[in-house]
C-alpha cells in the first residue's frame, strides 16, 4: 500500500502526457463507497422532491424568494457545507465527494447554478484563503445557508481578461477601511446574496485584491435581473459598488493576491463544472432514452431504429468518457491534497496546491464536460423530433440551460489556450520533461517504422494507440514550438488544435483505464459493454487527432518537412478497424433495456 500511495501521489499535473498510467492508480466512479452513494442519493432525492416540481416557477422569476428558499433547504440537508471544514459548521468531506454531489445536483437546471455559485465560487475563497477570523465569522452561516454568497469578478470591460478590471478599493486615511467603487456584471445569485466576494484593485495596483463584502455594509446597488437564454431561474444581475465601505480586515489573503485567488477558485470551478455537466448529461440522456422507447413511428418504438440508436449510444459514450476523465483527475487532485497534508501543510493550502497542480486537467475537463453536455442536449432535441422544439417538452429547457457552460468559468477557447499554455510553461520550467520525449518522436520519424509484434491481448491495441496518440501530440506541439516560437501564443488556431488533441487523448486514456479496471474488478464477460465503449472512443479519437494534427501541421510546415510530419501523424493516429456500428448497437441495446443512462 505504501508504495502504491507513493506512486499515486508522485503524479504531477500534465504528466499523463509523457507517462504511462496504470489502471490501479485511477479512481473510477464504480468505486464510490456506501456513504458517498448515500450522499448522492440525498442530492437526487432533493432534486426530485424539491427542485423539479418548481423548475417552471423558478424560471418564471416571478417569485424571488423561491430560489433562496431552496438554498435554505439545501442548507438544512447539509448540502451547502460538504466542503466546509467541520470546525466551521461544515462536514469536511473530501474533494471527490464534493465532486459527486456536484455531479448529481448538476441536473438541477437553474438551481444547479445557484447552489454551485454559492458553495463554489462564493464560499470557497473564504474556505481556501480566509484567515481564522474570517472563516469563523462567515463559514458557519454559509454552511447553513443563512447567508448566501456570490462572486464578483467580471466587469463590462473585463471578462476573459479578468485582471484588467477597473473596480477600485481605496484605503481610508485611518487605514481601517477600503472604499470600493466599480461595476460588476453577470453576477450569479446577486439578487439575494448577503455576501459578495469582490475583486478590486487597491489604489493603482497592477493586480487585483479580493474582499469579503457584506451587503449590509451599504453602497451595494443591484440592477434588474438579466434576461437570459437559459438558466432563467438563476439570479444574474449587475452589481454596483458605490462608496462601499469595507473593513480592512475583510481583505482576503494579501493585497495584490486577488488574481491568483480568482484563478485558483476558477480551477476548482472548472473541474466541478465538468462534474455538473456530466450529471446534467446523464439526466438528459435518460430522458431521451425513455422518450425513444415510448415514441412509436411506423409501428415501432423509435429506439428500434439505427439512426436513433446511434445517437443514444453516442451520448452514452461521450458521457462515459467525460465522467471517467473527470473522476480520474479528481482523484489525482485528492491524492495531491492528501500528500501535501501529510507533509504538514494546512488543509486549505493543501487543497489549493493540489488543485493548482492539476490546473491543466481542470481546464481540459471544463471544455470536454461542457461540450459533451451540449452534444447530448442537441441530440436530445433531435431524438424528441418535433416535440424537441416545443417549449412544453423537457428538451427545450435542457438545451437552453446547457449553453452557458461553454462560456462561464472561462470560455472554452480561453481554457483550450490555457491548456496548451500551461503544458508548455511547465515544460519550460522543467516540471514535466516534454523536450526529451518530443525529440524522441522526431528521431522515430527519421527511423524505419517499428511495426512491432501485434498482440491480441485485451487492451494491447489501445495501450499501443495511447502511446502513439501521445506521440502525435508531442510531434505537433514540439514542431509548433520550434517553428512558431514566441509567435505560438498568437497562433490561436494552432493552440486550439493542440488542445483538442490533448483533451481527446486524455479522454481515450481515461476510458481505457476505467475499462481495464472494470475488467479486473468484474471479469471480462461482465465488462464487455465497457470494452465496446472504449473501442468506439479510440476509433473516433484517432480520427479527431488526425484532423486536428493535420490542420496544425499544414498551417506552419511546408515541403519535405510537412510531408514527413504528416506521414508521422498518420502513423501515430492509426487504430485497428472497429465495427462501430455493431458496438453502438450493443451499447444502445443496453441503454434501451435499462430505459436510462446506465453506465
Amino acid at each position: 500500500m505504501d508504495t502504491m500511495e507513493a506512486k499515486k501521489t508522485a503524479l504531477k499535473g500534465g504528466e499523463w502526457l509523457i507517462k504511462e498510467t496504470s489502471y490501479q492508480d485511477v479512481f473510477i466512479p464504480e468505486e464510490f463507497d456506501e456513504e458517498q452513494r448515500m450522499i448522492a442519493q440525498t442530492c437526487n432525492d432533493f432534486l426530485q422532491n424539491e427542485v423539479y416540481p418548481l423548475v417552471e416557477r423558478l424560471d418564471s422569476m416571478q417569485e424571488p424568494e423561491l430560489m433562496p428558499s431552496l438554498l435554505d433547504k439545501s442548507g438544512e440537508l447539509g448540502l451547502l457545507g460538504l466542503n466546509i471544514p467541520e470546525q466551521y459548521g461544515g462536514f469536511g468531506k473530501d474533494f471527490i465527494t464534493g465532486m459527486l454531489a456536484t455531479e448529481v445536483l448538476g441536473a438541477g437546471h437553474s438551481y444547479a447554478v445557484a447552489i454551485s455559485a454559492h458553495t463554489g465560487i462564493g464560499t470557497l475563497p473564504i474556505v481556501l484563503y480566509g484567515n481564522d477570523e474570517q472563516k469563523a465569522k462567515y463559514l458557519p452561516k454559509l454552511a447553513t445557508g443563512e447567508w448566501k454568497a456570490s462572486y464578483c469578478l467580471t466587469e463590462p470591460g473585463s471578462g476573459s481578461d479578468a485582471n484588467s478590471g477597473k473596480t477600485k478599493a481605496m484605503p481610508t486615511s485611518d487605514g481601517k477601511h477600503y472604499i470600493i467603487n466599480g461595476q460588476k456584471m453577470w453576477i450569479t445569485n446577486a439578487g439575494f446574496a448577503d455576501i459578495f466576494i469582490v475583486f478590486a484593485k487597491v489604489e493603482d495596483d497592477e493586480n487585483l485584491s479580493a474582499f469579503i463584502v457584506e451587503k449590509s455594509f451599504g453602497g451595494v446597488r443591484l440592477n434588474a435581473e438579466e434576461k437570459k437564454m437559459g438558466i432563467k431561474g438563476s439570479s444574474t444581475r449587475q452589481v454596483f459598488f458605490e462608496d462601499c465601505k469595507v473593513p480592512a480586515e475583510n481583505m482576503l489573503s494579501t493585497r495584490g493576491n486577488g488574481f491568483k485567488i480568482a484563478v485558483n477558485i476558477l480551477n476548482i470551478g472548472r473541474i466541478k463544472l465538468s462534474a455538473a455537466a456530466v450529471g446534467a448529461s446523464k439526466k438528459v440522456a435518460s430522458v431521451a432514452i425513455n422518450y425513444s422507447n415510448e415514441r412509436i413511428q411506423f409501428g415501432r418504438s423509435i429506439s428500434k431504429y439505427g439512426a436513433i440508436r446511434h445517437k443514444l449510444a453516442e451520448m452514452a459514450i461521450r458521457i462515459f468518457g467525460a465522467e471517467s476523465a473527470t473522476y480520474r483527475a479528481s482523484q489525482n487532485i485528492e491524492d495531491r491534497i492528501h500528500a501535501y497534508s501529510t507533509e504538514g501543510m494546512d488543509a486549505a493550502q493543501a487543497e489549493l496546491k493540489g488543485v493548482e497542480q492539476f490546473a491543466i486537467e481542470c481546464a481540459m475537463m471544463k471544455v470536454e464536460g461542457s461540450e459533451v453536455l451540449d452534444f447530448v442536449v442537441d441530440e436530445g432535441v433531435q431524438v424528441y423530433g418535433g416535440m424537441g422544439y416545443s417549449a412544453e417538452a423537457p428538451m427545450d429547457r435542457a438545451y437552453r440551460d446547457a449553453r452557458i457552460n461553454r462560456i462561464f468559468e472561462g470560455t472554452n477557447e480561453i481554457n483550450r489556450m490555457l491548456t496548451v499554455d500551461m503544458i508548455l510553461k511547465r515544460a519550460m520550467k522543467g516540471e514535466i520533461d516534454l523536450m526529451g520525449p518530443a525529440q524522441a518522436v522526431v528521431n522515430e520519424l527519421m527511423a524505419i517504422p517499428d511495426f512491432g509484434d501485434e498482440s491480441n491481448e485485451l487492451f494491447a491495441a489501445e495501450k499501443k494507440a495511447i502511446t502513439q496518440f501521445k506521440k502525435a501530440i508531442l510531434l505537433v506541439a514540439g514542431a509548433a514550438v520550434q517553428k512558431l516560437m514566441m509567435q505560438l501564443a498568437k497562433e490561436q488556431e494552432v493552440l486550439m488544435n493542440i488542445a483538442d488533441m490533448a483533451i481527446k487523448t486524455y479522454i481515450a486514456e481515461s476510458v481505457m483505464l476505467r475499462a481495464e479496471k472494470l475488467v479486473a474488478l468484474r471479469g471480462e464477460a461482465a465488462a464487455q459493454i465497457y470494452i465496446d465503449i472504449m473501442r468506439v472512443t479510440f476509433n473516433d479519437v484517432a480520427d479527431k487527432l488526425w484532423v486536428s494534427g493535420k490542420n496544425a501541421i499544414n498551417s506552419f510546415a511546408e515541403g519535405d518537412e510537412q510531408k514527413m510530419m504528416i506521414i508521422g501523424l498518420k502513423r501515430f493516429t492509426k487504430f485497428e478497424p472497429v465495427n462501430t456500428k455493431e458496438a453502438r448497437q450493443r451499447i444502445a441495446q443496453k441503454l434501451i433495456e435499462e430505459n436510462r443512462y446506465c453506465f
Partner: protein
Amino acid sequence: MNILVCISKVPDTTSKIAFTDNNTRFDSSNVQYIVNPSDEWYALVRALELKEQLGTGKVSIITVGLAEDDAIIRKALAIGADDAIRINALPADSFFVASQIAEYAKTQDYKLVLTGKETIDYNNAEVGGMVAELLGWEFITPANKLDVESDKVRVESELGGEILVLEAPMPVVISAAKGMADQRIPNMRGIMAARTKPITVVEPFNVAPLVAIQKFEMPPAKAGVKLVDPENMEELVRLLHDEAKVI
C-alpha cells in the same frame, strides 16, 4: 416510549425483473435495492416524529436479512433511527419474518411496532398482522394517521372511501400507509452519524416457513391502447363487446 419499525428491502421500482433456476428464483443480480417505501416514508418517519414529539424513547429498526442488507439498514439509520437489529437469515416467507420479529420484540419493551402497509415486491401485506398475532397485541391496518395519547393510539384508517377513526391500547402493531408522514431525505449529519450507530446482529430462531415458491411467471404483456373517436360510440360498444368481452 420505544418504537420498533420493521423494514424490508425491495427492488428499486426501475429494476428489471427476471428469474433464474427454471423460473423458481428471483434473479437478484444487478438489482438495486431500496428500503420499502411505506416502511421508510410512513412507518419510520412517523416513528421519528412521535419520538420528537414525546421527547423520550428510542426508535429501533429491525430487518430479516444477511450482511448485504446493512446498506439498507444504514439508510434507515441515516434518516434518523437510533439503532438497528438484523436477524441474520434470508427472509423465507411472511410467517418466518414475522416469527423472527415477534421473537425478538418479546424480549424488549416496545409499546409500538410499525410496519409499512405492504412491500412493493410481493405485496403480501401479511407481516404486520402476523407479528401482532404472535405477540398477542392489537393490529390496525391500513393506518393513514397515527397519534399517541398516553397509553393508547388513535388511528385514522381509510377503507372503502370512508375514514375509520380507531383507538387501541398499547402495545400495538400498526401498518402504516400513505398520509401518515412525508418522506424525509437523509441529511448529511444523519448520513455521517449512521456509520457509528449500532447494528445488532441476532441469529434467527428455528421456525419453518409456511410458504414455498414453486414458480414465478411474468404477467402477460399489456395490449396496446386503442383510441376511439368520441363521435364513434358504436365502435366503442363493438370493441367492448366483441374484443374486450366486458359488456
